[in-house]
């Protein structure tokens, strides 16, 4: 495979791999998040969380993957030089996957905060119900 074909094929394959990583992260976290969402006092909040989680995770991962600049940062490379250098293309592919993994970390961390607020709401809803039953 010549370098030009490799550049095209590897770019789209890596984008597919990054998309799969985002989907895997969503699948891994989906069930516990759905359980937490079900316990929320408001039904609309539940559906919002269930829909926003996969969207935000996958979009953020894709965004991180696509944000990798092939022209280089401090030392810009021309298109011809990029095509000539197979090692450079491989390093950029690896950078795309690395950025996607970092995006998963940021997304999950952000959702840990959202779940914290949700758990607080669940606990308050429960204590309100308990005090209502008591009086």
């Amino acid at each position, binding site marked *: 495979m010549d370098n030009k074909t490799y550049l095209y094929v590897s770019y789209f394959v890596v984008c597919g791999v990054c998309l799969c990583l985002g989907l895997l992260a969503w699948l891994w976290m989906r069930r516990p998040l759905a359980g937490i969402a079900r316990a929320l006092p408001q039904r609309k909040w539940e559906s919002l969380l269930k829909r926003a989680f996969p969207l935000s995770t996958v979009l953020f991962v894709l965004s991180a993957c696509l944000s990798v600049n092939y022209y280089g940062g401090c030392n810009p490379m021309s298109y011809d030089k990029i095509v000539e250098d197979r090692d450079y293309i491989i390093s950029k592919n*690896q950078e795309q996957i690395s950025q996607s993994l970092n995006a998963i*970390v940021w997304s*999950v*961390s952000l959702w840990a905060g959202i779940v914290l607020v949700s758990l*607080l709401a669940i606990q308050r809803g429960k204590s309100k119900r308990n005090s209502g039953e008591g009086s």
Partner: protein
Amino acid sequence: MLSHNFLAFLCDLILSIAIAFLVYRLIAPSLRELLDKIVRLPEGTTFYLRAFGLVLFCVALSKVITGIRLKSDAHAIEYVWAVGSQLSDVLDNVFVALLAFVVVVTVLVVILRPKNGQ
């Protein structure tokens, strides 16, 4: 035949996954007990445990995946240095992730603390 760079990458990958797995195994049991007491919702405990595991593995792999690139005439010790340098980055990342998670769990304990010191 496998290149030395690939072998070094493989060593790096195995060691990084082992580090992430070891940290997870050491922390997970006590974290599960604590979360069970505080969150009192099994899905909440599962969410935070899975998030912890996912973050640990992702931060470890994100450093390793960039690979090792040394010239073919590099000496054996240079590969060892390269693996060591990458492992140092992995340990840094795992340390930061661990610290961030301790902060999150501390906030959880403060906000959702059980009444009567249970």
